[in-house]
Structure formats: structure tokens, C-alpha cells
């Protein structure tokens, strides 16, 4: 097993220590759920012991009475700082490295990509969509779309998009319930179809969700521009493209070593025949 796969496996296990949840069909309610998992992992997954940072972010923004005008000193805003600070601290430390090393949904996509040798390319420009998902579904809609002023909004990314929520929580909990209390409607059908489409796309292309739709990756991309951990390409590079073939997000690192697309998995470093790529902390020079 490669070191990154081992770390991804350990991360997935540590985030899912409440295995009893799968027997009971219930979610964990312990105090650790006040803290966020450094990756996209639904807090309604029966075995999850931590909160999803994207879900937590939206639930705070969509809380009744929360408004940007009340930022100073308001407790909801301070809670927002807790989640945002957690995510940004990780981003400023290592950029998108948690996408490569810790995120269970990224791990799932890596595993699915192994089912095929050749993968369909994803246009680089599509990566801009993840910033739109972050701005619209995670921030704007939960904050703005309320039935009346002062009322609570909805976590629109969870509600309309998140395939991790559908797979880790929606499908298992619906199976446990068996239609006794939960009545699936259009939204469940839409989210199930979207999740299946993303799973199929993950076999055809490499990490499509991370590259095109993930709002967490978008946030870490933005913070990653200033991260302490970074990639470098020396002038020994011969632009052979070997790094792109081993990269889980097919990033052309020799063109843009500081790109927001790089997930800092480090697979390109040993793959480079010229030894031109290195990964490390910002140096003093």
C-alpha cells in the first residue's frame, strides 16, 4: 500500500469510529461532533464522529437571525469564525493537502479511478465552477434565501448538491428506515441521480468532484496561494509531462507550480525523471 493510501485509510477510519451507528441506524451524538473533520465527510453518516465543515459553515450562516450586519460580537458570528478559522489555518499551512491525504470522498474517487487505465480529461476552465459552488450554494443561498426576514435558511449545498451526504448518510439512513418515517421526494431522487452521475464520472475521469464541484477544495485553493507548504519546479524540468500522468487531478505542475489546482499529494516528485520537482516548506531564501 502506498503511503498516501495508508494515510487516507487511517483518516477514513478515525473519522468513522462510531461503528455502532451502522447497527443502530442512528448518528453519533457525542461532544466530538462540535469539531470539524478536515475533509468532506457528512455528519449524518452513522459512523461519523466529527462534523462536516461545509455543513457546519452553512448551518451557521442559515441560522435564524444570522445576518452579515450582526457580525461584531454576535455569538453566531463567533462560531462562524471557529469553523472558518479552522479551515483557513489548514489552508494557510498546507493548501489543498487534506484533499489528497485526508478527505474520504477524495479517497473514494481515487479508488474509483483505479478501475480504468485511461481517463477522460477535464477542461481546466471547469475548475472555476467550484468557486461558484462555494459562493452560491455554501454562502449566498443559505445566507439570503429565507421565507421571511429573521427566519432560518437552508444549507443549500447539502440539500441540492453534496454527493457525500447522499452516499454516506442519505442512502444508508433511508435503507435503515425502510420508508417507515422518511418519505423520499424529488430532492432525494435528484441527489441520488447526481451522486450516481458523480460516481460514474469518477471512474471515467480522475477526481471530477474535487476539480469541478467541491467548495471545500475551493476554499483551500484560495488559502493555498499563501500556504507555507508548497511545490517547486526547477529549471531541470524538460516538460515531459510524466508528472501530469501520475497526478490525481492531472495538473500540469511544470506550467504553474503554485496553482490552486494542485492538491499537494506529492506523487509527481518521485515520478519526475529529471528530479526537477520538489515539495517543502517555504524557505528563508
Amino acid at each position: 500500500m502506498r503511503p498516501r493510501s495508508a494515510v487516507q485509510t487511517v483518516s477514513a477510519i478515525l473519522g468513522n469510529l462510531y461503528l455502532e451507528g451502522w447497527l443502530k441506524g442512528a448518528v453519533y451524538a457525542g461532544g466530538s461532533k462540535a469539531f470539524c473533520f478536515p475533509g468532506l465527510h457528512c455528519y449524518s453518516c452513522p459512523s461519523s464522529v466529527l462534523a462536516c465543515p461545509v455543513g457546519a459553515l452553512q448551518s451557521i450562516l442559515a441560522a435564524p437571525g444570522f445576518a452579515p450586519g450582526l457580525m461584531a460580537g454576535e455569538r453566531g458570528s463567533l462560531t462562524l469564525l471557529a469553523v472558518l478559522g479552522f479551515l483557513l489555518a489548514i489552508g494557510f499551512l498546507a493548501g489543498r493537502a487534506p484533499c489528497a491525504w485526508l478527505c474520504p470522498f477524495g479517497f473514494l474517487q481515487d479508488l474509483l479511478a483505479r478501475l480504468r487505465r485511461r481517463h477522460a480529461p477535464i477542461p481546466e476552465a471547469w475548475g472555476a465552477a467550484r468557486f461558484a459552488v462555494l459562493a452560491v450554494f455554501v454562502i449566498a443561498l443559505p445566507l439570503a434565501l429565507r421565507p421571511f426576514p429573521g427566519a432560518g435558511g437552508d444549507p443549500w449545498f447539502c440539500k441540492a448538491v453534496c454527493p457525500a451526504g447522499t452516499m454516506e448518510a442519505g442512502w444508508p439512513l433511508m435503507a435503515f428506515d425502510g420508508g417507515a418515517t422518511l418519505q423520499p421526494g424529488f430532492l432525494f431522487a435528484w441527489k441520488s441521480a447526481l451522486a450516481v452521475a458523480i460516481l460514474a464520472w469518477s471512474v471515467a475521469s480522475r477526481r471530477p468532484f474535487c476539480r469541478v464541484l467541491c467548495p471545500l477544495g475551493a476554499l483551500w485553493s484560495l488559502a493555498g496561494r499563501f500556504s507555507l507548504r508548497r511545490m517547486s519546479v526547477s529549471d531541470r524540468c524538460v516538460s515531459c509531462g510524466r508528472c501530469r500522468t501520475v497526478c490525481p487531478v492531472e495538473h500540469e505542475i511544470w506550467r504553474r507550480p503554485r496553482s490552486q489546482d494542485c492538491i499537494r499529494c506529492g506523487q509527481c516528485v518521485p515520478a519526475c525523471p529529471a528530479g526537477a520537482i520538489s515539495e517543502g516548506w517555504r524557505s528563508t531564501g
Partner: protein
Amino acid sequence: MVRQRIANPSFSGSTPLAASSSPWRRAILLPLLLMILAAAACAAGYLLGDPSAILRKAASVCLECIGIG
């Protein structure tokens, strides 16, 4: 004049120590400062805010996540 500038390290108005700290600042200070600020914001948020709001949401089944709510 040129020789004077080279011979006198304080000509540019900076000491050798300040001159050597300039690239250090550019390379590390900003990201380090941002990371410390973010970590401090996180700590302040947990200490002064209402982390039980995250717990309340995370400790019950999220119907929106399932696609029912």
C-alpha cells in the same frame, strides 16, 4: 560614488540584519501570520462563540443532507 555605495552597507538605509530579514519576511512572514490569525480566530470562535450550535446540527440526522428536508 558607486564605490561609496558598495563600501557602505548602511547607504541604502538598512542594516545588514534588516537586509537579510527582508526575503525572510516576503517568504514566510505573511503565510505564517495568516495561519496564526486563522488559528487564533478558530480558538476565539470555540471559546467565545457557541460551538454547541455545530454540535446540535451534527448530532441529529440532517434531513437536508439526505435530500428530504
